[in-house]
């Protein structure tokens, strides 16, 4: 700072004195809750980066296919024994995952199952106990199966796996871009909420006007981002065609996984025949 003494005449007087400011009480719940929820979404996406597959490391397209088969079997079956067997299988898989993941998956599946149980309670009291238990256990199995898949596989690998099921490449590209922009816009909105919080130093009677401003800026920014990306893609020679290469090898664990699921299909058919 080698500057000579600059003129202070243009610095307003109020800026030279210390502000003796005591803020009035105001509610910031909405901004604080928004910050927290956006932060959670961003952390969830960021955590995808560090997701490690469980030590079972099942081939991702195979895992997606098996989960889909499992969901179909669970929803079609009329046998409570079959659903219970699936639940036991899923819980035993959960046992070999790490504690954090186990808690996160169980939190979701137990929460949704409890909610279903409460909804089914009147039917249970009316005497439809079998159907109520059936639906509740089916919900537990479905949520746990999907939770296991999403918590043990990176989203990028999941979208990549869609290629194996002949999902058009352009659709996979759109999915990837969507995930990326949810993250980018999430970061942007988080910064805007931080700024709003930092600048809200007193009583704000027009909170919703500020929120509308934040939403408007977000909309304009997303439009700008979309335009920028469109131009960038054009510059990179994008002509509407997008090809994605996907090669994967099967290991012994994958064959074991296939065998288990074939077993489930056989069991489903057998129990279906026994029941009829």
């Amino acid at each position, binding site marked *: *700072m*080698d*500057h000579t*003494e*600059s003129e*202070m005449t*243009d*610095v*307003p007087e*109020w*800026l*030279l*004195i*210390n*502000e003796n*400011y*005591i*803020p*009035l*009480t*105001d*509610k*910031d719940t909405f901004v604080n809750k928004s910050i927290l929820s956006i932060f959670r979404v961003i*952390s969830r996406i*960021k*955590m995808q980066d*560090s997701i490690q597959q469980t030590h079972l490391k099942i081939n991702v397209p195979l895992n997606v296919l098996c989960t889909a088969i499992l969901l179909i079997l669970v929803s079609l079956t009329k046998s409570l024994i079959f659903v219970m067997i699936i639940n036991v299988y899923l819980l035993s898989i959960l046992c070999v995952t790490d504690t954090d993941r186990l808690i996160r998956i169980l939190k979701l599946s137990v929460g949704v199952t409890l909610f279903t149980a409460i909804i089914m309670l009147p039917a249970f009291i009316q005497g439809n106990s079998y159907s109520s238990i059936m639906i509740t256990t089916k919900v537990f199995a479905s949520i746990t199966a999907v939770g296991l898949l999403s918590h043990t596989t990176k989203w990028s690998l999941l979208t990549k796996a869609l290629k194996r099921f002949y999902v058009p490449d352009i659709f996979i590209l759109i999915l990837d871009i969507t995930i990326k922009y949810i993250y980018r816009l999430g970061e*942007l909105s988080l*910064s*805007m909420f*931080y*700024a*709003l*919080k*930092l*600048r*809200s*130093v*007193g*009583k*704000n009677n027009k909170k919703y006007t*500020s929120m509308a*401003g*934040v939403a*408007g*800026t977000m909309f*304009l*920014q997303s439009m700008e981002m979309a335009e920028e990306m469109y131009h960038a893609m054009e510059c990179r020679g994008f002509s509407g065609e997008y090809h994605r290469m996907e090669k994967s090898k099967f290991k012994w664990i994958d064959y074991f996984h296939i065998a288990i699921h074939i077993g489930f299909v056989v069991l489903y058919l057998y129990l279906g025949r026994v029941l009829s």
Partner: protein
Amino acid sequence: MIEIKNVFYSYLDIIALNNINLEIKPGEAVALMGANGCGKSTLLKLMNGIISPERGSYRFDGEEITHKKLQDSKFSKQLHQRIGFVFQNSDTQLFCSSVFEEIAFGPRQMGLDELEVTKRVKDCLKLLNIENFENRIPYHLSGGEKRKVAIACVMSLNPDVLVLDEPMNGLDPKTQRWLVEFLVKLNKAGKTLIISTHNLELVHEISTRAILFNEEHTIVADMLTKELLKDIDLLKKVNLVDKYYH
């Protein structure tokens, strides 16, 4: 004024601040320097009460800033009035319908009467040389103009400390020069400045003291800016410059 002792902070498993110790006195002009991702922005967020330390303590004017205290709306509002934060991306800071409304946002919340609010806005517009923008829509301004409006928004609160995150980024040389002169003027007016920057050409003009981070998110040097700029080996060691820098 600002006292940071043995502070640690991490994002999930990624360490952002590793045993930070720092003291800043009123009226100082301090530059935070270091390679990208070394923890400068996190430290600025911590100073502004956006985040609180996982371990260690942060004191502002002798009072410890904790997560619990920041939950108290009155306390955090007072802290935010005393420490103004200019974000790296000015777009995130502007959300009102006109530049006038943008600058008046803070003073109005402080309960100042409309005459005083108008005086503050006019003074800020004059101080930042953006008198003609009063009725413009902030979103339609250029990068440099937005930065000026963002600074004006913070200045209208009359904070004791002004924290700027990479203020020179994306500005043309003329606006950079203007900003240097402006920050010097503010510092001479008694404001404490904390600036994170990569700009090695201008850093000695906007700060007297420099704090250097290494890539392990620790402070490796705290010295006069001029002295630090001479220590090229150290700057190379923290990956701030390469072999072509001299």
